[in-house]
């Protein structure tokens, strides 16, 4: 093909693309970046919201909150951010990408010790986690959940009936730090690890393969989940509508179904 002919073809293709008629009833797309622990709950919320708002196409992107906040800070196009910890929302507020007055706590979560149903290490109480030889899988220590786990273990080390060295002993039993909490759940559900520490909601979502060890509420931690529309969301009105829907009784009911606690007053 001669260069001139080639140029002609390229230009006409570009023109054709530009002139193509808009798709009938253009769908508004709304991009939601959500912490991976929200996967099941937000997916159902998405379906209900889309059913109520025909013409809106909600697209979900799940990863750990740290990664999501980093991606948004680097300019990833998102309309709504739902984080598993306040720190990452604060980072975007300081970055000028989220209006602090628009940040709302929409759910809360707690830690849960999960075991495969077969309970291969025969664990019966939390203190068994420190027993030598138990294979534990935890979330990355640097992630938000890793920080909660560390505080939980610190609390338990100071609790009556626990060895003061409990925390060190538990960390000594770790065979892998997974990059997401979902990774912890999968490894435990497959029976590869004897136990893991995940969110209450994770234990609930895999109830047929997992059991749990109860954590006394006075030592457990409450993780606040904040949500906010982004300041330069391409579709701010719809982004705000989605946040309102998630905070509404209908939205809260769906979150409760997956084990989330309502936001504290």
């Amino acid at each position: 093909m001669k260069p001139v002919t080639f140029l002609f073809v390229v230009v006409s293709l570009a023109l054709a693309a530009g002139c193509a008629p808009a798709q009938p009833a253009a769908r508004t797309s709304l991009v939601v970046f959500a912490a991976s622990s929200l996967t099941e709950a937000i997916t159902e919320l998405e379906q209900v919201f889309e059913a109520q708002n025909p013409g809106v196409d909600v697209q979900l992107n799940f990863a750990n909150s740290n990664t999501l906040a980093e991606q948004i800070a680097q300019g990833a196009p998102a309309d709504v951010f739902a984080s598993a910890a306040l720190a990452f929302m604060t980072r975007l507020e300081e970055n000028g990408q989220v209006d602090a007055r628009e940040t709302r706590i929409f759910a809360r979560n707690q830690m849960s010790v999960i075991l495969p149903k077969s309970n291969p290490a025969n664990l019966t109480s939390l203190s068994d986690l420190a027993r030598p030889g138990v294979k534990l899988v935890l979330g990355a220590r640097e992630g938000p959940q890793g920080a909660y786990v560390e505080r939980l273990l610190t609390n338990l080390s100071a609790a009556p009936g626990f060895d003061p060295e409990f925390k060190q002993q538990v960390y000594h039993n770790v065979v892998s730090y997974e990059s997401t909490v979902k990774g912890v759940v999968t490894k435990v559900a497959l029976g590869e690890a004897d136990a893991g520490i995940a969110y209450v909601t994770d234990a609930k979502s895999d109830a047929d393969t997992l059991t749990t060890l109860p954590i006394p509420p006075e030592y457990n931690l409450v993780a606040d989940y904040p949500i906010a529309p982004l300041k330069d969301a391409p579709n701010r009105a719809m982004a705000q509508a989605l946040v309102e829907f998630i905070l509404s009784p209908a939205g809260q009911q769906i979150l409760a179904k997956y084990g989330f606690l309502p936001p504290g007053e």
Partner: protein
Amino acid sequence: MSNNLEIALQSKQLRRAGQPGSKPDWFNRLWTLAAAPMLLLFFIPVAAIFLRLSPTDFVRSLTDPAAVQAVQLSLTTSLVSLGLILLLGTPAAYVLYRRRGRLHWLLDTLVDLPTVLPPAVAGVALLIAFGREGVVGQALRQVGITIPFTGAAVVLAQMFVAAPLYIRSAALGFAAVDCELKQAAALDGASRWQVFRYIMLPMSAAPIISGSMMAWARVLGEFGATIIFAGNLAGRTQTMPLAIYIGFENNLNVALALSAILILVSSLLLVLLKVVINRRLNGD
């Protein structure tokens, strides 16, 4: 190989023929210009790592215990993997080269499969097979062996993804050995083992060496299968690529320093590879 040699010779002659006067060679300049974007895409990111990483940061990151552990672990596991690939891969290459049996095409495809599979698939498959609850893993557990989350898992993952590179190269090397040479040796009374040991092995040294280097480079870079099958624990299963991934989220300098090392080592391997191949082409 002889084919390659002919092509190389031909292109050399053509190149000589194509340099008559001092007339500017517009045709070739245009090609160079057109190739520049592609080459820059390779060059810029690699260069960016070294631009971003100051020498002092590089040295400081290398004293970080997580980085030191990752380098040590990568070195030991990759050498063990390479040794096992040579030991177990050579017979596989021989079987592939012989092309015997009706199911040969099946073996051929099987050996190529890991090269085209995403490493994540390899990781899931290995976990399902050799995990505690896996098909083979359950049996191993009866005799007290558990593989996931151990150095053995790291080695298995590395072998799974990298061995095909060696096997393929060695099989091609065996196939390129002149049949008459083998027949002549056999006529002179060499046993089949002697033919293999004294004719085939030395004559396919170059593809065997280049195949091992490619496999080693691939082993050093293995990430997806390792993090799924072997997990991530500093000092036990956290190899350099895993430390880079985890480090990217909390300690960028360590991630950069380890990336720089991997780039340097891989480049060195590739340069050595070209030396081996060139010597082979110019030699016999």
